């Protein structure tokens, strides 16, 4: 007797081709069940893409602003009273090696700001007046929307630079030498208006006058309310560690040190919980999509019994039938997954562009999307494929 016959192997291309034929034969059903997967994948890619893009935007902003800005302010003393920083703190902090610049501002709580002297006193608009030094601008990384910054001369005179929101509230679009505002009971000339200062938002609703001018015209006592320190980017933490003791060696516990860039990052992190929720919804959509694929495949097996019978008669083994249906399910879900990736990336791109963010879809999200698709296709296709392989050839042919 001759050796037992051995079945031939199906090449991957043949499996793909078989799947392609079958899917093309029922385009509407294929489109609908692929849509389920597509929506799930698109939702997940878009959620990941949008949150990554927003984080990329934040990083870009932080890079531009610099994460090496520190603030030190007087906290409260042991008795809960507001503490102050000693006058020498500016010079002492300036002597810390990695510190590049240091500047102080002082509160002028009694100096209210009005557009002119006829505005009723209670309508101060919450604008804060601060006495500042000339190096504030470079230290906090602020830029001017119009006009000029205080210089060594104007710092001595009743000149004021407005924060962006202050200018809005007072109805001032641009600075010019004829514009004056009523500040602390006398006229100040508006010489400049700042752009928003993301790292020090309080300046946006501030009116900034020279330190000496404050002392001369508004009875400013010279008390430091905040220090802003730019350090070597590599030594931020080291400087932060010694800042309190340097600013007020006698009472380091009365100094509050913070890093404004951290507050921005923390605000962005609040979104994570929401992102998690949306990802969960995407996962549910994906699961439903997978069930749709399984359902389509089960029906397909029932409808195609005669095809299965024919293929068995042509010499297909159970394995050939199994791999054909499994391949078809995989193809179906990859079709959906591919569409989903394109859709999700598109949604991310549109949203990010509208927000003027950079579009970032992380590679891991795409790889993850494809992997999830393959797993879903495999799981959804396995049971129908096994059923297809179990169909007895004679029964299948008789069904036609």
């Amino acid at each position, binding site marked *: *007797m*001759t050796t*037992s*016959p*051995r*079945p*031939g*192997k*199906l*090449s991957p*291309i*043949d499996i793909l081709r078989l799947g392609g*034929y079958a899917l*093309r*034969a029922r385009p509407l059903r294929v489109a609908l069940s692929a849509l389920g997967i597509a929506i799930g994948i698109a939702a997940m890619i878009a959620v990941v893409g949008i949150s990554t893009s927003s984080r990329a935007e934040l990083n870009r902003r932080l890079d531009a602003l610099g994460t090496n800005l520190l603030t030190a302010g007087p906290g409260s003393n042991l008795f809960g009273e507001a503490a102050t920083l000693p006058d020498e703190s500016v010079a002492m902090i300036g002597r810390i090696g990695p510190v590049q610049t240091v500047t102080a501002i002082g509160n002028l709580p009694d100096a209210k700001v009005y557009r002119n002297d006829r505005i009723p006193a209670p309508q101060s608009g919450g604008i804060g007046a601060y006495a500042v030094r000339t190096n504030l601008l470079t230290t906090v990384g602020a830029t001017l929307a119009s006009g000029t910054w205080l210089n060594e001369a104007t710092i001595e005179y009743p000149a004021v630079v407005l924060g962006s929101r202050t200018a809005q509230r007072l109805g001032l679009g641009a600075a010019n030498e004829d514009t004056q505002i009523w500040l602390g009971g006398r006229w100040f000339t508006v010489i400049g208006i700042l752009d928003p200062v993301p790292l020090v938002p309080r300046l946006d609703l501030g009116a900034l006058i020279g330190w000496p001018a404050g002392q001369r015209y508004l009875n400013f006592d010279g008390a430091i309310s905040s220090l802003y320190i730019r350090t070597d980017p590599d030594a931020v933490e080291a400087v932060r560690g010694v800042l309190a003791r340097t600013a007020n060696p006698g009472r380091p516990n009365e100094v509050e040190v913070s890093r404004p860039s951290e507050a921005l990052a923390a605000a962005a992190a609040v979104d994570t919980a929401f992102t998690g929720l949306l990802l969960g919804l995407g996962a549910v959509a994906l699961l439903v999509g997978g069930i749709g694929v399984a359902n389509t495949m089960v029906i397909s097996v029932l409808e195609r019994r*005669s*095809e299965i*019978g*024919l*293929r*068995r*008669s*042509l*010499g*297909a*083994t*159970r*394995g*050939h039938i199994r791999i054909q249906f499994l391949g078809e399910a995989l193809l179906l879900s990859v079709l959906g997954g591919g569409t989903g990736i394109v859709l999700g990336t598109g949604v991310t791109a549109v949203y990010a562009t509208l927000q003027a963010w950079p579009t970032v879809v992380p590679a891991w999200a795409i790889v993850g999307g494809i992997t999830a698709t393959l797993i879903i296709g495999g799981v959804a296709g396995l049971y129908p494929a096994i059923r297809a392989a179990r169909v*007895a*050839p*004679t029964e299948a*042919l*008789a069904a*036609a």
Partner: protein
Amino acid sequence: MNGSSGPIVTLRAVTREYSGGVVALSDVNLDIENGELLAIVGPSGSGKSTMLNVMGTLDRPSSGQVVVDGFDLADLSDREVSALRAFRIGFVFQQFHLAPGTSALDNVADGLLYTGIGRKERRERAEAALQRVDLGHRLTHRPHELSGGEKQRTAIARAVVREPTLLLADEPTGALDSHSGEGVMRLLLDLNETGTTVVVITHERMVASSLPRQVTMLDGEVVDDRKMAVA
């Protein structure tokens, strides 16, 4: 070359009983010689189709021995039986079973799909097989663009493309008009001339009587087996 080189199908005391107690084949003994051309006739329900399924290894007997092309079915696994079909046995069905939306050429090429032959060679051989059944001009046509006779000839091309030693035709003319039916029968005779063993199942006495051997079945038993003297 009728009856030249030993049996290709041997059935010994073959019984096929379906669940529910229906006996489709009962103690059937039959030898088919290599190169034979025969008809299995009988009314519907007589067990013809079960016989064809058992001979074609699509079904296994409940008891008894089936030897096809030298292989005892009882010794072969499902995989090996599938491979036996892929290389040695061709089927032709009454309902053609062509894949819709797929060209005649690809339908025929699928006849070689499970033999491990590459796609290019499959298509080349499919084209040759379609030429052989006079459908060389219909290669790219899809089943719905073909007449009934052309569909059945395509199905025959699919069965013979792998050059089987045994061709089993289940009511091949059943869905055709008499003219197309004659063409299909002539084709089967031509194939037999070139050495293929051909078994035709039919309930039409006219078709059966044109063939050299007729096996008549009734209620799952072979009741008559006569060979005509070659005219």
